């Protein structure tokens, strides 16, 4: 095979694995929240705040995993805020999401300013490419453990939705609040918990951004990944496993620009930067329909009504 093309493909594979991880976490978090019948558009802010907190804690404690955990806690705080505000009557969850997005980004930039310069310890990755001598392949197969954590969470979620009491409760609340109330379930509490845990996952996704790839904290770290992940859940039709596959697809799209750059094609770099956004929009157009709501969509979602 043409070696240039092979290099691009390998770089895209490595890029897909690296770039997809934050998408995966945010998408899984959003998937859980939406399964319970609420949309949290604020995960973009959660992602950015998670990235900042992870970097700061990793810098102060010297332990990147402490950073990952702290990012999750910060994310669940934002999730809990969203969850409790939306429990109030007459409050629109989409609008609260927009506000949470602006608030999360603001707080992250505010407290993150002193951490732009210093270098924090990063998460080390697992060298799966050790057996191969090809340098490109080796760097592509340096996989961060969080990637596998994400896949494990996806499998766990898929299993729990299908087989556990909790999974049934979340799905019932998401499909019909009236039915859930009839069963004696507190709809608001289930949604609060789902949004909080969803926020935790999105925060961990942010930790990956600042502690692994790109691996530093700055104000331009996330530009819409959180939002794209929300769109990705629609494309994945609310299935955790399909969320992982869709995240990989998005990762590959996001890796086109850097991959082409690695073989010296720099023209249209800014165009390829837009590729993930355009792909997201194209997928949304392809999977949406004006006349009926998407298959498998939780019936209580505000966008379904």
């Amino acid at each position, binding site marked *: 095979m043409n070696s240039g093309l092979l290099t691009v493909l390998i770089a895209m594979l490595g890029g897909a694995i690296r770039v997809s991880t934050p998408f995966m976490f945010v998408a899984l978090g959003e998937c859980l929240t939406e399964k319970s019948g609420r949309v949290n558009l604020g995960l973009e802010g959660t992602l950015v705040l998670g990235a900042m907190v992870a970097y700061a804690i990793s810098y102060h404690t010297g332990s990147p995993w402490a950073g990952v955990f702290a990012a999750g806690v910060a994310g669940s705080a934002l999730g809990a805020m969203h969850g409790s505000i939306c429990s109030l009557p007459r409050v*629109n969850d989409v609008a609260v999401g927009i506000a949470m997005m602006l608030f999360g980004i603001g707080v992250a930039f505010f407290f993150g*300013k002193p951490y732009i310069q210093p270098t924090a310890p990063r998460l080390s990755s697992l060298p799966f490419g050790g057996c191969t001598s090809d340098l490109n392949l080796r760097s592509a197969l340096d996989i961060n453990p969080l990637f596998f954590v994400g896949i494990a969470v996806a499998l766990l979620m898929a299993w729990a939705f299908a087989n556990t009491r909790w999974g049934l409760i979340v799905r019932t609340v998401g499909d019909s609040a009236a039915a859930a109330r009839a069963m004696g379930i507190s709809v608001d509490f289930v949604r609060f918990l789902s949004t909080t845990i969803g926020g935790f996952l999105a925060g961990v996704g942010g930790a990956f951004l600042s502690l692994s790839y790109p691996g530093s904290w700055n104000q331009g770290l996330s530009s819409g990944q959180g939002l794209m992940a929300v769109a990705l859940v629609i494309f994945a039709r609310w299935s955790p496993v399909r969320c992982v596959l869709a995240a990989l697809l998005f990762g590959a799209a996001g890796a086109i620009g850097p991959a082409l750059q690695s073989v010296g094609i720099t023209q*249209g770099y800014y165009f390829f930067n837009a590729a993930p956004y355009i792909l997201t929009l194209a997928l949304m157009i392809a999977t949406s329909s004006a006349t009926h*709501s998407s298959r498998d969509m939780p019936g209580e979602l505000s966008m379904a009504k």
Partner: protein
Amino acid sequence: MSTGAPTASEIPRRALGTAKPPSAPADTYDFGSRLRANSEYVVIPAFALLMAALLFALFLLAIGKSPLDFIDYVWKGGFGTAFSFQNTLQRSSPLILTALAVAIPARIGLIMIGAEGALVLGGFAAAAIAVPMVGVVPPIITMPVMVLTALIVGGLWVGLAGYLKYARGVNETISSLLLTYIGIAIMNFFVEGVMRDASNPNKPSTKPIGEAYMIGNIPGTSVHWGFLVGVVVSIALYFLMTRTTFGFAARVTGGNFRAALAQGLPVGRLIVSCAMIAGACAGLAGYFEVAAIQGRANASLAAGYGFTGILVSFLARHNPIVIVPVAILFGGLVASGGLIQRRMGLPDATVLVLQGLIFIVLLVSETLYGRFAIFRPGDAKERT
């Protein structure tokens, strides 16, 4: 917000619920009860604003800064002197237009947050069409062409999100924000590539359009024409949305989509039109940023006016006229950002934190509507 003072002074006793029952004739009672019912929409947002300010003051105290200093600098930097107030008006111009870009779709039931992208692309398109015309075509022709280009490009950009909503059911909030990212990427693509001004090594920009092709200030002030245009557009859109069949049809569609369909209203055309009006407003804001301030298109266009505009529109309850005073308030906040940063040693994101806080508290306050007997004259009588 602007109607707060007369409301409070005209019916103070009844509002407090301590006075004797009204003995006014039927027609003035009707007016009074309407005023009382409407004052809910002023008192609750104002209360939310106050609560957010209190929370922010606590936040400042927690990090060891003085809230009084903060208020002082916002006053000095945004409103205190003629110079700073003119700066505020200047900054409120894009806020008025981007808030309108949120308010008009909101009337038809769509939450669109794509104003930032339409502003950037509209401004860029205006600069891009002007650059080859500079020195060839006189300003008197070039300037209207620039305005028209900004209106059309902005209108088509957000109109696309409206069309996708109607034709394909694509969620308009997500698609409009995605289009913002795409719009910024398109501008960067051209500004860093084929359209880059090679003589300007510092910041990738288009070639300058030149002083003669820029739109000046309102005579006797240092405020550019964008402010006045913003005010005129707000008034025009207020009349469009409240006094015309178009506006009525749009509000019916926003209130009950199925009823609008059943009535045979041209729902698709209404949605796309509202989205296009929104985009045109944001594009116009982009035109003024290029033609009145920057003189060229570059990344400074994406300064976040589109996002602050979302908050302005929500705070004004998507009422085009109320948007103007609210935009001036936030224009002052944005204008004083630099002073706060320098004097108080706070990061520039401070304004973002405050805006986020106001937005959240405002949305929480939505839950208060309809809970107070004070605002429902009829109910109050029954209960007491």
